[in-house]
Every structure is written in C-alpha cells, then in structure tokens.
C-alpha cells in the first residue's frame, strides 16, 4: 500500500481536478490519507465507516464532525460513511477556492441537524451548544438561549416564519466576511 498515491489513474485525477476545487496535490494528498484509513484491511472497502473518518486529526475535535460526515455521505443507510469521492466533496467544499455559495450551502446542511431543510429553534439550539461546547460552565441558560434564538431569528428570518431557510441563511452568511476564511479544512 506504500505508493498509494500513484494508484489514482491520471484521467481520474484530471477529472477530479475539474470537478472539485482541489488542486492536483491536494487530491493526491487526500487519496493518500484516505488510503491510510483503510490500509490495515485486506480488501480495502470503497466506503470508510464514519468512526474512521472521525479519527482524522482534522476532524477529531471538531464539534460538527458527525454532521459533516452525514452531510457528505452518499451512503444509502445513512451511516455517515464516506467513499473517496465523498471525501473529495468534503475537502472541496472546505477548500480555499470553494465559492461562498458552495460553502454556505454545505454550512446550512451541516447546521440543519434534523435534516428538514430549515434551521428551526431546535437546530439553532444545537448549533449554539456545539459552538459553546457542551460543558457546564459554557452552557447558556434556558432564558439566554431563548433570547439568543429570538435575536437570531429577528436578524435573519426575513419572512417571519420562525425558521431560517437556505436563502435567508445565505443572505446572512454573505454579510459575515469571516465566514469564507473560517469555513476551511486543510489536509
């Protein structure tokens, strides 16, 4: 499994380059890292289970790691497992050169914890908990949380339906200039 990077055929590499925001080096590196995850198995499966992906140092401590896996997984059984292409999709969306649109789209899906297509109160609460860490000293009180969610909705819920949808989210994101630089995972 040593020269795993050379296993990626040239045409496929070119194709990935065209389909993702990644450069050649990044794709090769991703391929190498991905193969390392499966190297101890005799027949490397095309899908790497979620817990292995989560063991990557890039995701290990990320509070959104499970959501990230679920969003990018194309698995039928929704177990968050990733194929190499899913993995590339993930890296592409988190890469430097990805557009704001792509980034905000995936950010929305990552933050949409219940997968219902909108960020409602529950999603926002989970999001805030993820952001502040779920320890006792950094948890907001019920009252604070309620107030915060009200503020958030006031700020972004343009049509006043009590939830934030993708367009509203993208609108908000477009006003947070730091977002693009912080929505980034580098291998």
């Amino acid at each position, binding site marked *: 499994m040593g020269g795993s990077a050379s296993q990626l055929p040239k045409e496929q590499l070119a194709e*990935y380059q*065209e*389909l*993702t925001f990644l*450069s*050649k*080096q990044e794709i090769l590196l991703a391929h190498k890292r991905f193969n390392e995850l499966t190297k101890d198995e005799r027949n490397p499966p095309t899908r790497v289970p979620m817990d292995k992906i989560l063991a990557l140092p890039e995701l*290990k*401590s*990320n*509070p*959104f790691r499970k959501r990230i896996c679920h969003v*990018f997984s*194309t698995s039928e059984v929704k177990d968050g497992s990733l194929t190499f*292409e*899913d993995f590339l*999709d993930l890296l592409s969306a*988190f890469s430097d050169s990805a*557009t*704001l*649109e*792509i980034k905000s789209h*995936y*950010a929305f899906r990552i933050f949409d914890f219940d*997968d*219902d*297509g*909108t960020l409602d109160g529950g999603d926002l609460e989970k999001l805030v908990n993820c*952001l*502040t*860490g779920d320890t006792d000293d*950094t948890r*907001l009180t019920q009252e*604070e949380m309620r*107030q*915060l969610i009200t*503020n*958030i909705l006031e*700020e972004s819920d*343009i*049509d*006043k*339906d009590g*939830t934030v949808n*993708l*367009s*509203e989210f*993208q*609108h*908000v994101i*477009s*006003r*947070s*200039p*730091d977002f693009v*630089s*912080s929505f*980034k*995972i*580098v291998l």
Partner: protein
Amino acid sequence: MPKRYGTIVSPHKEPRDAANRSSRRLSGHGNDAMLNQQGQNDVSDHEGGQSNGNSTAVEEIYLPPQLGSSKWQQRRGTGSGANLDSTERYTVDISNTSLEVERTVSESKKSPRKMNLLHRSSTALCKLGLSEAEIKTEIENDKLELVRDLVKMPRKPRAQAIRSLPVSCDEKRNIRNRVLQAKFSKDSVKRTCCTDCSERVSLSLRRWWLHVWHGALKEIGGWFDSAVLTYFCFIKWLFMFNVFLLAFNLSFITVPEIVHMYNSTTNSTFEGLDLLTAAGYFHKSIMFYGGYNGEVIKAGSYDMQLAYLLTMLTYMMLCGISIVYSLGKSVWKNVIVYSPATGGAWRLLCSWDFSILNEKAIHSFQKKLFIQIKESLLDTTEKTVLSTPDRLRNVSLHLAAWLLYIGLAFVSCAAVYVLSTYNLEIKVALHARDLKSEAFFLFLPILVSFINLVIPLLYAFISRLENYENLRAKLYAGLARDVLLKMSILGILCYYWLTDVPSNLSCWESFVGQDVYRMAIADFLFSVLGCIFGEYLGSLIGTKCMKTLKPPEFNITRNVLDLIYAQTLVWIGVYFSPLLPIIQIVKLFIIFYMKKVSISLICRPSTRAGLAAEMKTAFTALLFFPSYIGSLFIMGYTVWSLKPSAHCGPFQGLDAPIDAVSKLVIQGKLLLLLLSIMLIVLYFFWQVVQDRKRLISLLREQIINEGKDKAFLLGKLRMAQGGTARPQVHFLDEGAQAVKRPTTFRVPQSTAGPRGLRKGSRVGPSRPAAAESAQASAPAPTPVQPTPAASVESPQQQPQRASDRRASTAAQGNSPARSAGQGQSPRAAPVERQPESPGVGKGSRVECWVEDERPDKQGSSPAPPTPAPQLAWGSTTTTPPRFPRLEPLTTRGAQAALTRLSDRTPRPKR
C-alpha cells in the same frame, strides 16, 4: 375545520421537506426509499378525493412562507405549465426577490439559478402527486436544461459552474460528461497549445504560492483563529513582494553590473562591524547605489541608467497594482457586505473556525464564543446611554490622550532629527576610516527602533485611561496612533535624507542607502529581541512566576504595523541600495518562524474575535496609503528633482536621474500618470462600493416589504380559514367552480364573504382562460377535463401534464430572457401587458392580485417570453452584480399593491 387549520399551518413545512428530500436525492445524498415514500404520500394525498380535497386545496393555495420556497413556486409556475396555471395564480411568487446570491464567475451568471432549479425541481412535482418515474423525467428535464445552458458557456466558466454545483462528485461527473458529449458532438473546440500552456503555468504558479509555508500555516490555523492567521499570511505576502523585488534587481541591475565590472577593487578592508554599519568595505560595493557605474556600462550594449530607473519604476508599479488589486478585492468582500446594524448574533454563529484542530484551542475558542454570545445578549437587552457629562468627560479624555500621543510623536521626531544631523556632521568631518565614528552611526537606527518599540507600549498604557465605546473604535484608534508615530518618524528621516544629506555629501545616495540598511538591521534585531524578551519572557513570567500576570496576548495590530514599517523602509531604500530586499527576506523568514514558536508558547489567543477580515482590509489599506504611496512619492522626488551625485553612481553628470529616461520617453510625467491611473482605479472601486451599498439598502427595504406583504397575505388566509369576515381567498373556489375546475382549490364556500364573492366573480373566467391558452400553446393540446369528484387528475393525464410541462420548459429555455441571463421570472410578462394596471410593478408577486382583477387575460400564456427586465443597478456599475438578484422595481410594485390593499382592508397584525 381543525384539520384544515392544521394543514394551513403545516404546509409551511411541507415544501421545504420536499425540497430537501428532492435535493438530497438529486445530490445523491438521499435514497430512493425516501423518494418512493414521498411519491406515495402525494399520490395518496390526492387520491383521498373529495374527502381529502379540502386539505389538498388548502395546501395548494398556501402562500409560500419563505423565500426558499419561492424558487419552488417559481419552478412550479414555470415548469409545470398549463395544468398548474390556476394554482399559480394564488401563489405569492416572490421569485424575483429570491435571495439567491450569485458568487460564481460572472460569466456563468445563469448557472446558479439552474442549480437551484435542479435542486428544488421535484418539489413541485411531489406536491402534484406525480409518480416516481415522472419525477425522474422532470429531473431529467431540468438536467437537460442545465446541460444545455452549460454547453453554451465558454470552457472556463463552465468548469467553474459545474464545480460550483452543490451536488456530489458522481452527479457532477454525470452532468459534465453529458455537457461534454453535447459539446463535442456539435463542435469540437480545439484547445490551443497556448491556452494549455498558460493554464499550466498559472496553475503551477498558484500551486507554488499555495505551498509556501503551507504546513506551518495549517499548524497555526490549528491553534488560533483566522485573525492570527491573517498576520502570517501577511508575512507570506510581503515575503513574495520582496522575493520578486530581489529577483528584479538581481537580474536587471546587479548581474549586468557584475558582468561589466571594470574595477572590483575596494580600498577598504572588511571589518566585522561593517556588517552592521554597512560602511567601509560595503561603501562602494554593489550593495549600494555608489557601486553601480552607469557611464562605463553605457559604452557597451547595456544602458545601466535606463535599467536602473526602469527596474525600480516597473517594480513599484507592479507592487502598486498588486496592492490595489488585493485591496479592491478585500474591500469588495468585506466592506460592502458589512452593515453594522445587523449581524451580531449570526456573525458569531458563523464564526466557527473549522481549521482549528488543537483540542485546547477548540475549548478556548468555545469559551470565547460563549463569552461573546453572552455579551451580545447583554448588548441587546440593555444599551447604556451615556449622559452628557459622561460623554464630555470621554471626549476630553480622548482629546488629552491624543494630545499626549502627538506630543510624544513630536518629541521622538525631534530626537531623531537632532541625532541624524549630528550624524551628518560627523560624516562630513570624516575623511579616513574610523571605526569609532562609524559605530556612532548605529545610534540613530537604534534610537529609531527603540522609539518604535517603546512608544507604542506607552501609547497602549495611556489608552487604558481612555474609554472606548466599542471594540472597533478602540482597534482603529490604536492603529491610527501607531501609524502616526511610525510614519512621522519615517517622514522626518526622509526629510533629512532628501534635503540635508544631498547638499553636504559627495556620494550621498550611498550614505542614505547605508542609513536605511542600518535601520533595517536595527529593526530586525529589535524585533527579534522584542520577541524573545517581550513574548518569551513575558509568557514565562506570566505562566511560571506570577500567575496573576497573565501571559501577554499576541498583538496582531502592532506586529503587522512593524511589518509595514519594515516594508516601507525597504521601498524607500531600494533605490539607494538595490540589494536591500535580501535583508527583508531573511528577516521575514526568521520572523515567521520566531512568531510561530512564540505564539505556540504563549498560546493565549486574544479574548475577542479579531474581526479578521476587516483587519486584513485595514492592513492592506495601510500598506497602500502611507507606506506604498509615501515611498513612491519619495522615489519619485529623488528621481525627478534631486541632482544625483557627480562622482558616483549610474547617473553621474545628469541633472536628475529621470533625464536618462526622458531621452526615450516623451517628457511626460510617467509616474504621475501611472499614479493617477491607480488612484482612478481605486476611486472606481470606491464608487462601486458606494453603489452597492445604496443598492443593498434598497433591496433590504424591498425584502422587508415582501415579508410584510407575505405576512399580511398569510393573515388573510388565516382569517379566511377561521371563518372571519371578509375572507379574501375564497373567491378562488368560486372562480374555479365557475369554470368547471372545482377540484384543485377546495376552500369552504360557507365562509365566503360578499367581498370574496365579488372578487371571485371577477376573477373567475380569467384563470381557466389562461390555462386553456397555455394548453393551446403546448404541442399536445389536450384540454384538461376536470373531474368533479376527485381532487387530482386521473393517472392517464399525468404523462400529458409532464409533456406539457416539458414543452413549456423548453420554451422558456429558449426565451430571450434566459439567454439574456437576467433573473426575472418569466411570469412578469403578463403584468406588463396590462396597461390598465398602472403603478403596479413588474414583480410576479404582485401579479396574483393584479391578475385577479383582470378577467380578460386571454392572451397570456403561462410562460411567455420575458421582456428585458428593467434593472436599476447603480449607474456606474459595469460589473455584473454579485448580489441577491432582486429587481428593485418590484419594491414600488409591492408598495403600490400594499397600499391598495391596505386601503381596502386594515392589515391584520401578526
């Protein structure tokens, strides 16, 4: 009734669910089981027939609660053609105001919309209760359309557009392959060798750029947030500047000089001290201006005078362009979109840094966010308003502090000037080599560096007494006073170099070069010492000895200002000492790693979010304005107005160095011209920014109006549901029954008020007429036979519906509006055709009201070609908008409609 009420609430969720599902399925992230379920759900919904009809009807009428589903509505309206025409009438289609933000390359303007269509397409169909196969065909149609659009694009934007599709790799490959198939079956575009080559070069350049210090930057990003990273990226950027500068100078000035060197004999011996003072051995070396001899080389084929001048000027120009470009870009990104009134909470929520890997850093980041969220909550709950005496006290404090700052800066300038003139006296008196007096020259740079190190600390101390209202003001005030200090010192030095020195010394350029060299060296040493003593020791003391004294924070602002100062020195000095960039390169390289170690030791990121993007803009602006423009001015002054020394350097015997060029170039103020061009470019950017700001405020207003409008309509609907007086919606039902299409809109008639009846009678004929005409325009004109008992059409009719829809979709695909790439809904046209409804905007949202009052709308098909939309983008804006694609004109329409409505009925509070 309760059931119906339930449906009116729940539908808000419904389309989104469906949209989500469809997009997920489409993007390959969902599964077919879900699809099946969806399909069945819908079918069963509709098969519920009469008994279930009411709820279905309500569902059909419901007003899209949010903008996201507006696309769904649009899709439904445009894509599903005739059969849906009647439905369409009641939807509040605010597709024109969809907040779709176009971020992809400008040429691929159309693609995002397509993308979204692709995404949500099946929603509408799910709603219609189509089977899985039909949904698939519909998606296929969308894809076809998308592919068709993509085929029309040039290669590069197309690749970008495909890349930007938010779907999985597999799906993207699929689309790309189809595009390529279509493309190459039509015409195979040959890629020229040239484009291939240029692409490869640009790619490899970019890759190289990306990979300098890649690992280190990633590591830093893992520890800290992006604000700290900004500093390191800034170092990287400056590093590149200097590498290019050095390459320029080496290849055009130094190497030719070495090749043509006629006497490499220097009469001085090398002393260790020379490395610091650059005097003696280095005095006549190629390190400095004096080492270059224009006369001699001119005899050969290489014109040293020209080379020297043009290299400097070209480099400065390139530098300027690069800075202006990145400044424009970051201003564009950050300043435009920033509006202080909003974004508090969301700014925090979106600020999670995914690149942070370190566990400890993550915890501290979470803590920081927690504190900030709490603060933002406090901010919103209680805003303290300062009383007048308090404010007066604040203002006087600021005034006093600033007087102190300026006084300190003045004193330091005076000290520097006195010492420098004293230096000059020694230099003039100096005839033979004297190490002692050469060592004395070091005092000036040491003093300057000392001032640069200590006075900002003093400033910071004083500023603690000041009371700033917010973080931003504090940050910028700190920036301003530090810049003031540094630039006034540089200013006084430049004055000394350009007035006192030339009049007193014979080879003054070299002396100035040496002075700058000494400054750079001293600055370097001081920053290293400052790093060791200030940061290492500080953190040691802070962590080990005195726990109360926390380790020092990493002050990004001060560090960046130091970098800018050093870069300014290089730009000023490069004319007098062409190899000065070497010092800077070495310095930046060492500082990069020193700071990296230092921050990893300190590991105490600032407790506040750093406003990273904004600071970056500010830093770039500072690098441009006082620093770059200042050094350009000084270089220009030297070249144009100062008499070069008569006995050394390339410009011996000339009145001014520019005379060497003016032989070639017409006596135009070349530099001035270029400078003014740059300023014009900057002004242009500024204007665009202003324009965008105005537009954004306009659009915001419009969005708010839309929201109000929708809420109002929703309220109406609810009123209608609740059986309150004067319901507005029930006329739909009346109308529908009048034209034998009673099934799709089944709203209880019992609650229909007199007003609704009146309206209904007016609107009645219009809908079916439109529907029929739409069918007539379709290739397979099969009039839909309404089935009174069932709320959905019979299965046999469904394929026809699909084909109708396809036809209309195709028609739209070719419509001029699409090819024009303007994002106005095709449905805007009917309104335009109605001269009888003046004052109504072109937004299709308004249309639902307008159309209701137009019984004789026979001629309008559901998908007529859209007239060229009247956009009101800012007049000076020539670039394609990167905004929410909204038509400002709709606002007026919305308001007009709103006022008309509110004239009739008091708006219900929501």
